[in-house]
């Protein structure tokens, strides 16, 4: 494949882990498994946890709202299929350990193949008012689908204190292995353009920049072609950015495209920017135009230890086990199942863990890869080589923070700006001494939060 563009847009630091995207790059988005049971987590995003709106035994329709919350930073959850509520019980959660989920037993059904609609070029966002868009986004339960899962309505709705002028669409997908955003950009291009226009209208941004890493020339081409075919495309531009991990980080993408830094501890609206993932804007279009809630998402099931890697359109709430079985199961006795990519993903111990709105991939790593990874190799003392400082995209001093945390000196760790860490994992990746720098820093952040009593012990 030719790499036609080499971009100069980038950020300082970062690293180049093997991309491994070839496993699923050419695999079109297919329908996911037809599961008999889904567990819809009541906590799928940053913000308040939803409370269930239905009781055990109640009948639910596909797309029915089953959990909601009055808090500002929150998003409702919906049942992906018609059936009956079997129970409301604890399920393993990738981040929270265990959390409440509504388990829906489905009537026999056929998995969804495609999003509900194919948008033509004649789509006009003027048909929808700002309030209409914001309300539809909120009611559809849309949260950032790139990883963190921040409720999208809070991001895009107009805020007089922090006026927004630039909308950045994140199509970088810098994590190794993952290709779901890439496939969405190729296959749902028009839908993305429609979603961008709706988000632009809602947020009041004057310009739109679509950042795509230059290792995806076809996606750049597809987006450019769709843009030039669509009406009202002024101030909308595709910006190829340099392929480097973590280019898809919000702060790194803003730095690369706008050459501006988001203040430490701040959020992008402080400098007038909103960043939305391509999958999120596709969901916005679906929600606003078809009034369909976010109940399915594209998940890349990949890794060397999986028989049939690919990109699947999966009901949110499907357990990882069902998903892996559908993909021909794991070919190895010993493996690591990671929700997300290998750099920032979370390894799960319970295969019953359900897919959430933020699960962009299930990566199954082989025993050999595990053996090469940090924890199987012996950690040796830090030789102060400084490689972690060079790769840190936030210009921190990972080794100092990690060693301060190791010695339980949280104040020292904070004096090296521990809380500014974005946990991208570059420092751990390059460390020749195999030190789990990112792990120490994450631990330190949790300790710090406990000290402030923001988090139960």
């Amino acid at each position: 494949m030719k790499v036609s563009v080499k971009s100069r847009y980038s950020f300082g630091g970062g690293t180049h882990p093997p991309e491994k995207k070839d496993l699923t790059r050419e695999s079109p988005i297919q329908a996911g498994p037809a599961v008999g049971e889904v567990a819809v987590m009541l906590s799928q995003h940053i913000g308040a946890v939803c409370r269930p709106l239905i009781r055990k035994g109640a009948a639910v329709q596909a797309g029915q709202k089953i959990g909601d919350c009055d808090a500002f930073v929150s998003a409702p959850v919906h049942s992906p299929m018609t059936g009956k509520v079997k129970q409301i019980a604890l399920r393993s959660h990738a981040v929270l350990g265990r959390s409440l989920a509504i388990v829906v037993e489905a009537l026999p059904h056929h998995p969804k193949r495609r999003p509900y609609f194919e948008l033509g070029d004649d789509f006009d966002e003027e048909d929808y008012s700002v309030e209409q868009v914001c309300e539809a986004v909120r009611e559809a339960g849309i949260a950032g689908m790139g990883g963190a899962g921040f409720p999208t309505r809070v991001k895009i709705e107009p805020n007089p204190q922090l006026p927004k002028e630039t909308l950045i669409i994140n199509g970088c997908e810098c994590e190794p292995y993952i290709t779901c955003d890439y496939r969405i950009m190729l296959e749902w291009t028009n839908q993305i353009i429609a979603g961008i226009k709706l988000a632009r209208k809602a947020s009041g941004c004057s310009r739109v920049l679509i950042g795509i890493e230059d290792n995806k020339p076809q996606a750049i081409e597809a987006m450019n072609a769709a843009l030039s075919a669509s009406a009202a495309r002024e101030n909308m531009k595709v910006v190829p950015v340099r392929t480097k991990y973590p280019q898809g980080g919000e702060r790194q993408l803003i730095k690369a495209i706008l050459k501006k830094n988001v203040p430490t501890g701040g959020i992008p609206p402080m400098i007038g920017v909103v960043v939305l993932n391509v999958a999120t804007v596709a969901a916005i279009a679906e929600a606003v135009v078809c009034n369909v809630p976010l109940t399915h998402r594209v998940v890349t099931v990949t890794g060397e230890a999986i028989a049939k890697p690919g990109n699947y359109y999966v009901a949110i709430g499907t357990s990882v086990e069902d998903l892996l079985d559908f993909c021909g199961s794991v070919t190895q006795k010993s493996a690591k199942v990671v929700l997300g990519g290998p750099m920032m993903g979370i390894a799960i111990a319970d295969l019953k863990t359900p897919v959430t709105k933020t699960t962009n991939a299930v990566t199954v790593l082989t025993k050999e890869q595990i053996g090469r990874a940090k924890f199987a190799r012996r950690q040796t003392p830090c030789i102060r080589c400084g490689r972690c400082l060079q790769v840190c995209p936030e210009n921190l001093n990972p080794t100092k923070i990690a060693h301060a945390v190791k010695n339980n000196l949280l104040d020292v760790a904070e004096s090296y700006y521990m809380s500014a860490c974005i946990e991208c994992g570059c420092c751990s990746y390059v460390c020749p001494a195999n030190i789990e720098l990112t792990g120490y820093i994450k631990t330190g952040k949790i300790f710090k939060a406990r000290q402030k009593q923001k988090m139960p012990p």
Partner: protein
Amino acid sequence: MLRDIRVSCSPHISGPLSTRRVMVDVIIGLVPAMVAAGYYFRVRAFILVATCVLSAAATEWLCNLIRKKSNSLGDFSAVVTGVILALSLPPSLPIWAAIIGSVFSIAIGKMVFGGLGANIFNPAMAGRTFLTVSFGALMTTWTVPATISVEMPRIAQENVYDFRTQATPLGWSKLAIKNKLGADIYTEGQFKATIIGEVGGCLGETSVIALLFGGFYLLIRRTISFHIPLAVLVSAFVFAAIAYRTDSYAYVQPFFHLTSGGLLLCAFFIATDPVTAPLTRKGMWLFGIGVGTITMLIRIVGEYPEGVMFSVLLMNAATPLIDRLFKKIPVGGKPKL
């Protein structure tokens, strides 16, 4: 079927680099210098390098045994220390002295601080300093390279002397300055000799070509960054140039300072020891400038002809302060509290 599910914190993949690889790279970088040492000082070079490496490794093994720690020989850092120490010793040094130096390097220079990564001073330079202070005469006896066949003035009966000795280029220049003879007289012929290494001096420091080869290997492999070597060499050159311009009769040409003595060995292999050098780029600049300047101060103003060893140790001591001086600031600026 999946039976054994592993978990750990992210990232789940890891780069190819290991501490051992870093150390092996340094050893590979030192190979040209070792070859040059073998060429000019023949079997003495081999004996000294082998002695230092073996006794350094044995000391590390013994220290780990005493400290009840797991064996750390696998990271090859003791080998690196042994090689660097050997290359900074005069060829005629008795084997017992080399063993003492190696033991001191590892046991006092490194292991008492807690082993690799915890030492404050460069272990090899600590060992060399110990030898210099303890056995001053042995450490300043310089053998003539085996490739030079000058008839030495016979001061004793034949077969009595062990080695033919001469002063190092820097020693010549120092003597010349002291005797007000004009330094240039002695240095002109020696400039070429220092490039290929046909001069008296420590085992590994004589050949500029060999050191540059090794240094560039490390730079290309990115085992070291260019900051410290460049800062050392440029600051030393500037200092020497200023001295030369003030009194060209009393001081040798600045280039001569770069090519002679241990400055290149120091710039590429000793000052760049990551454990004892600052972490940040700015810190590396300051560290390198400090090493270069102090070296030249000792060479030009001080009594010793060579000052690399002391300058590295002095700057090692300043490293924690330098790290504190140039603290990294997050890209988004300091957070507002």
